[in-house]
């Protein structure tokens, strides 16, 4: 059941309807059942995996909670008899114990993800044939991360473990965000899921608007641009030079429309249910630096890696030892950097790996890391520049230049995603500067990529709308909330979206004379 299928629309509508028909206390059950219906239709062979993750999440969280409870009971009971050191020892003992439980839980949870997602890749490094092709359950990267984040939070005592298995299951499997996130935090999402939200027509309108806008971005903009991207990728041997730039631009449109659109659909549906999961994007393409970009793009993933990989790694005992050693032996400047760099590189290596099993993803992650580290190192230089030309640096054209630069850089390394082959991608990047074929592209090459002038016009119109919405959305209150306050305007906009998506969307069997007679009789 893809988001863009009619079946999903019917399913989502039915879920929202049933949700409000049930008594408030029982409403979360509707969500849980809906989650599993959704997942069942995604592929019933995926069910054991999500059940397994749920079981691990539930039992290990409960286990750690039991240890925490026992610890506080013990400390409570022996409040007067224990010395400060003894109390510390007890705490430390329980902490170690909890850590072991967490490690085993994480091994089980991440282990399954690792085996299913990376076995083929790892085997392929060592040999070229007989590479196993394991099934990859839908959304496994997302629900594993969300669940494991919860386990870590429990071990840290940030949240109390959920006592009800089914409520845990709901947290793991909440259907709108199962496929492509956002990756929510337990403390934030769980209470919202369990609470029975009263019906509010405002939420319904705002949610519908958001979902409709998501469908627009995905079906009218991203999927249309995708046709040209597919052609560019499939014929990458001949379509070099300027075409690579074209691919970078078009794929940026694709990934933006597809990903932010998908999130809008997910959050729109959640909003109709009165649930507000964390935002995943904040006008990322207006970022003026790579660092800013990563604070605005796929936010929940970035913060997950920061909170659960980068920070713990940075403050871990081996890292502290390393820090001490390197500072002593390599001097302050270099010594201070080594552990931070290591932690950053490792985090980005994992980020790359999380996106997919393949060298292209790993290299993509490391290139991001490189850009971040380089810009970090160049900071003093930038400050100097800023103090020299304060007026220029505060001007709009300068900001525009910075945003364009960031956009192009991110687009460039993102193209690894499309070409899927690292040396080839590098070679193609080289052709941007060596093969100057813009004349050919402008004299008709751009029309031979599967899109006609009419399609490009639709694309341009779509991008313009996205740009305008993004500009209007800068205010305190999100644009759709301002709009949703006006019911008639909302109905009108929804109708307009329906028409535009139905006509200009890229879906269904393409209708052209070429398809008409395939194999006649």
């Amino acid at each position: 059941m893809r988001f863009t299928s009619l079946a999903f629309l019917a399913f989502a509508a039915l879920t929202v309807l049933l949700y409000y028909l049930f008594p408030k206390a029982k409403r979360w059950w509707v969500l849980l059942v809906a989650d599993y219906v959704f997942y069942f239709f995604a592929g019933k062979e995926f069910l054991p995996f999500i059940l397994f993750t749920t079981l691990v999440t539930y039992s290990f969280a409960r286990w750690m909670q039991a240890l925490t409870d026992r610890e506080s009971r013990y400390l409570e009971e022996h409040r007067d008899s224990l010395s400060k050191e003894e109390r510390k020892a007890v705490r430390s003992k329980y902490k170690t114990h909890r850590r072991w439980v967490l490690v085993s839980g994480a091994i089980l949870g991440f282990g399954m993800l690792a085996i299913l997602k990376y076995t083929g890749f790892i085997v392929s490094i060592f040999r070229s044939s007989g590479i196993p092709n394991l099934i990859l359950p839908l959304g496994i990267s997302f629900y594993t991360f969300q669940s494991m984040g919860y386990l870590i939070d429990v071990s840290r005592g940030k949240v109390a473990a959920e006592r009800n298995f089914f409520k845990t299951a709901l947290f793991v499997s909440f259907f709108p965000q199962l496929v492509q996130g956002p990756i929510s935090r337990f403390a934030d999402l769980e209470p919202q899921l369990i609470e029975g939200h009263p019906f509010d027509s405002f939420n319904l309108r705002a949610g519908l608007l958001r979902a409709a806008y998501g469908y627009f971005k995905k079906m009218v903009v991203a999927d249309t641009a995708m046709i040209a991207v597919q052609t560019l990728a499939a014929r990458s041997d001949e379509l070099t030079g300027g075409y690579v730039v074209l691919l970078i631009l078009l794929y940026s449109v694709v990934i933006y429309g597809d990903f932010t659109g998908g999130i809008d659909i997910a959050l729109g549906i959640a909003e109709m249910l009165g649930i507000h999961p964390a935002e995943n994007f904040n006008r990322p393409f207006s970022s003026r630096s790579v660092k800013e970009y990563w604070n605005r793009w796929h936010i929940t993933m970035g913060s997950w890696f920061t909170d659960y990989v980068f920070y713990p790694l940075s403050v871990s005992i081996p890292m502290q030892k390393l820090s001490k050693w390197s500072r002593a032996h390599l001097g302050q400047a270099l010594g201070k950097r080594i552990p931070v760099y290591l932690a950053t590189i490792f985090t980005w290596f994992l980020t790359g790996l999380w996106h997919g099993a393949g060298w292209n993803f790993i290299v993509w992650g490391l290139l991001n890391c490189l850009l971040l580290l380089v810009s970090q190192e160049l900071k003093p230089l930038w400050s100097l520049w800023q103090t020299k030309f304060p007026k220029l640096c505060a001007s709009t054209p300068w900001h525009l230049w910075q945003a364009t630069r960031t956009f192009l850089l991110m687009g460039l390394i993102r193209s690894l995603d499309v070409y899927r082959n690292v040396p080839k991608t590098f070679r193609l990047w080289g052709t941007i500067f060596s093969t100057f074929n813009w004349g050919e592209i402008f004299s008709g090459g751009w029309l031979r990529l599967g899109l006609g002038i009419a399609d490009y016009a639709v694309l341009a119109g779509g991008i313009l709308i996205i740009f305008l919405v993004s500009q209007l959305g800068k205010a305190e209150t999100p644009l759709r909330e301002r709009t949703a306050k006006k019911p008639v305007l909302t109905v009108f906009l929804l109708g307009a979206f329906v028409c535009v998506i139905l006509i200009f969307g890229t879906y269904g069997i393409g209708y052209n004379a070429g398809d008409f007679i395939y194999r006649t009789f």
Partner: protein
Amino acid sequence: MKQIQLKRWLAAAAILILLALLLCALNRLLLPKYRSGNTEGRLTADYYTDVKTRHQVLFLGDCEVYESFTPPTLWEEYGISSYIRGNAQQLVWQSYYLLEDTLRYETPEVVVFNVYALKYGTPQNEAYNRMTLDSMKFSPVKLSAIRASITEEESFASYLFPLLRFHSRWKELTQDDFTYLFDSSPVSHNGYLMKTGVEPMTSSRAGSPLTDYSLPVSSMEYLEKMRLLCLKNGIELILVKSPTNSWGYWWYDEWDAQINDYAAKNGLSYYNFIPEAEKIGLDFTTDTYDAGVHLNVSGAEKLTSYFGKILRENHGLEDLRFDSGLSAVWQEKVVRYQQEKEGLLK
């Protein structure tokens, strides 16, 4: 306050109604019109313009009916009123459901079914499905026809709301799409699609041998359903095989034997016109427009004359030329037929 609420509801309702109307209009606009080229796509729609006329004979089948029999000739020579519900590659279940659809309007005395399409046991081709089904009037019969016909890649919903299928045609709209937006005038002559060209048959090559000659179970099941439906409605079912037989569309003796068996077992008449070609007077150097695959108008008239006699003599179909009302209707049709024939022959 209440008044504002009411106004809001009214405005919202108005917007929704406008939206629905707009979508209906778009749906109509974007559907292919099949006027210049691929006029075969109009055949299903044509029938509904003639449902008020009494038809004694209903022809069902693929191109081997709508290129082989000419209802105006059948009327002129025998006073038999007929209609052809055939489409390009009309599969057996489509013939069956078009029969059911026809029964919603009238009950003919005889149904003539051309057996060639029995060779197909599964849905074949999106384009042909579209041409056969899209202009069927909405009814439960249409739903069944869709369900039986769609190929794996197609979606049911896109037949209920063809906009889902044809939406990207906004890029290819032509003058035709606007000219024929509300025009339902027929392209055929009671289902006969006139072809006047001549391209002689040059090869007498037979079809390549098959590994399996049994006609598919699924298509034979629909033939049986068709027989039972005719029986229930007091209609005589006649099976025919058009006289064309060429390499690309070979009618194997093994298939013929199976149809003969089926006809004999169920007391049906089966006329295989392939061996009768000479008796009919067919000359495949002049009577075909595509090297022997289909008959042209000259060939179709010869076959119709021949078959009309059979209908009169063996199946007792009455001469209705005494019915002045019906005669008047047919007179118009015959004139239009002659005009097209001559206009094109010039």
